[in-house]
């Protein structure tokens, strides 16, 4: 099984990592970029496929050269045999449509046609959930590639190699209370739901999983040496990392990046601050009377019962 997993770098929205300015706008420079958390579920689904059926897992993204770090994160935290970054100034500021075109072309340029393509359920920043399905659409209009039936909201999956089909459990209407079983011919395009859970009921599978995790951690550690600031080597010197620009992919700059994006962003609203759930009274430390009040209020709780 040849699997390709698509991912994107997003701001790390976790408490303590994310930074907003006074107006509630995201401070991009102060907020670290991480692999889109939902895409890790997709990567876990691909790893499960490899554990059960063998093959390779490739991780692909489109973005600036710094996104090598994002691919490294996926390799380290979950699994990847090799990494592909589609990177070019001409690809910048793309909407989901231009991204899908670019990514589909990237897939076409792989030396082996994938049996399974995985995407996560929407990104933490854009939250459109479009890029996966749009990529699938672009693949289907591409004569060089086979058709990929699309299965979304997948929470569990298995492959019947003899029958050449993938069997999945998916959420109907994105709701955990209603699950349907969907079967599709391979190759197929799977969008993993955040509820996706890999299952390993055989000792042999768990042992292989353990082996693969050890291997991918070692591989990631090696890649990290190429990524380090103080090294003379270029990330692309690492044998399992491939970076392709628009010429490599033979893409017309007019159809990718900002120029190829029909979407127009009309404006960005700041994220409203969550309303306080409790009534709060502000007291300055040098306000003696106020502080007296605070101690009085706290005392009954400090007594221990």
């Amino acid at each position, binding site marked *: 099984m040849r699997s390709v997993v698509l991912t994107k770098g997003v701001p790390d929205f976790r408490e303590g990592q994310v930074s907003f300015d006074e107006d509630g706008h995201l401070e991009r420079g102060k907020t670290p970029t991480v692999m889109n958390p939902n895409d890790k579920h997709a990567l876990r689904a691909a790893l499960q496929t490899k554990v059960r059926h063998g093959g390779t897992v490739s991780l692909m993204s489109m973005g600036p050269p710094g996104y090598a770090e994002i691919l490294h994160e996926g390799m380290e935290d979950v699994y990847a045999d090799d990494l592909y970054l589609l990177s070019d100034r001409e690809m910048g500021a793309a909407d989901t449509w231009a991204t899908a075109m670019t990514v589909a072309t990237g897939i076409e340029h792989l030396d082996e046609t994938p049996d399974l393509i995985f995407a996560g359920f929407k990104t933490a920043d854009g939250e459109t959930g479009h890029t996966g399905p749009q990529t699938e659409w672009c693949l289907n209009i591409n004569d060089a590639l086979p058709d990929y039936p699309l299965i979304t909201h997948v929470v569990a999956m298995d492959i019947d190699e003899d029958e050449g089909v993938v069997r999945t459990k998916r959420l109907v209407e994105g709701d955990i209370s209603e699950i349907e079983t969907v079967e599709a011919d391979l190759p197929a395009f799977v969008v993993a739901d955040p509820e996706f859970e890999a299952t390993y*009921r*055989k*000792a042999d599978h*768990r*042992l292989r999983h*353990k082996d693969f995790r050890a291997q991918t951690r070692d591989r990631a550690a090696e890649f990290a040496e190429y990524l380090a600031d103080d090294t003379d080597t270029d990330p692309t010197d690492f044998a399992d990392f491939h970076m392709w620009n628009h010429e490599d992919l033979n893409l017309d700059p007019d159809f990718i990046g900002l120029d190829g994006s029909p979407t127009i962003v009309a404006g960005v609203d700041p994220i409203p601050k969550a309303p306080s759930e409790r009534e709060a009274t502000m007291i300055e430390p040098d306000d003696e009377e106020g502080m007296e009040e605070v101690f009085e209020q706290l005392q009954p709780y400090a007594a221990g019962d």
Partner: protein
Amino acid sequence: MTETPTDEYEHYEAVVVGAGPGGAAAAAALANHGVETLVLERGVDAGSKNVSGGLIYAEESAPYTIDDLFPDFREEATERPADEYYIHNVAGRNVKTFDLNDIHHHDTEWCDSVLRRKMDSWLAEQVHGMTRETGGGLLTNVRVNGLLREGGEIVGVTCDELDPITADVIVAADGVNSELARDAGLMDWEEPEEWFQGVKAVVDMDPDAINERFGIDDDEGVAHLFAGDLFDGVRGGGLLYTNEDSLSIGTVFHLDSIAEEKAEPHELLDSLLTHPLLDQWLQGEYEEREYAAKLVPDSKKAAHPSPHRGRLLLVGDAAGQMQAQGPIIKGMNHAVTAGGLAAEAYQEAKARGNPTNAGDLYEQKLETEGVMKKLRPARYRYSRPVSESGLVTGLTNGLLNSPVGTAGLKLFGGLVERAFNSPFMLGMIPDTRFSYVTMPTRIGEVLGTPVTAENDIEPPELDERIGDLTYDVDDPHIEVLDNSFEASGTAVTACPVSAKDFGGGCYREETVQTNGGEQKVVSLDTQPCVECGTCAVVADTHWEHPPGGKGVEYKQG
């Protein structure tokens, strides 16, 4: 299950359940013989479910020691060597210290203090590497919950997390609360007198402070034991071992005595921690890293003389192979030997074309290699009916307290110390109050000198100790079958994370209104359970372990 033919199950030549020292030794020895071996451990990490007082021995007479099987063991997995060994006979503030170096070093190649999380996880890493080469390997987070049978024969194991697995040989090294030993009908959880309960605190201490306070160097260590009147008459004693940057301080008591005296184990531990004698080492500082508890089988009564059934071989605590005779407490070394012998037995049986004979061979090897002799000394069996009878205890008590006895002690103090150091005498020590309490107390009174120091440290309360432990709580794994106070009330006091009038523990006492009266019952909340198994013995319960990776997770052990 029976309608599924065996050939549909996953199969390994050997399955080892539990990655403690017994399981690790068995798996390493099997792997050395080229046997495809799968090791299944229920903790998130090997050692996360394990506790021991903390000394591992390598005996000169043992056919397998841990460093035979894992050459870097002492370097990588232990804390400090236990070079010196003392017992303190305590009577109030009076203490008489005996040097037990002779018995400690008798048949001892080396002896080191250990913390089980570090030790077992290191072993597991080695074992995984060794077994993976045979086509097997080691998996954590997998709880084996029973035996797989076909036509009444044991053919494999069943698990919470995996489909059933068949094997040609199954080594149950799943510890003191072995679910496999019980499934096979080889061990039970009935008699409190067959068990000890150990409770331990790992106490943070800077290595330099340890060196200075114990008068040792970085690569040296000390072991101290405590007996006498500091435990309210409960039969047992205390221990203190030096680790690299911590102390292991614990207490071990006969479970029947804890039950009878309605003793609170955490309070008994505190009695030791706060005794003036310990001030020389604690010096007013006390930071507890971890509170832990475990049951310990008393091999004199519980070591199974024939620990196998069909393809199943029991190793270590699962087989009751824990030697506690007076001041000698040896468990892990016997588990290692048993693990090695189990592997050897399987290999030989297989070479003779009859692998099903492994169990019988294993039993023979335990005898011929002298393991059973250490675990169940004949001297104890023969002398027990006399020495543990009330009449003799009464007589010896009377004698010891008489002017004649006192004079004798004074005259022969050195002789008593020598008797403690005799492996022959120790094999006969009766499990009575006389040995654990009366005798040491009398020695302390008559021969001891008073400790003048004050020990004002304050050990944590039980709720803090529970709060400091790490849990991944799952559905309740213990069910109280009879919640009447008569049947299960002892658990309220005997459980190391419960106490009378304490609401935050596992067991609590409740009064319920019934038709025309009141009834005392117990209720159970398994959330703070440390899986020691005490309540399985002293209360009427259905007791299982939590699924793989769930329940308590020891960081020290």
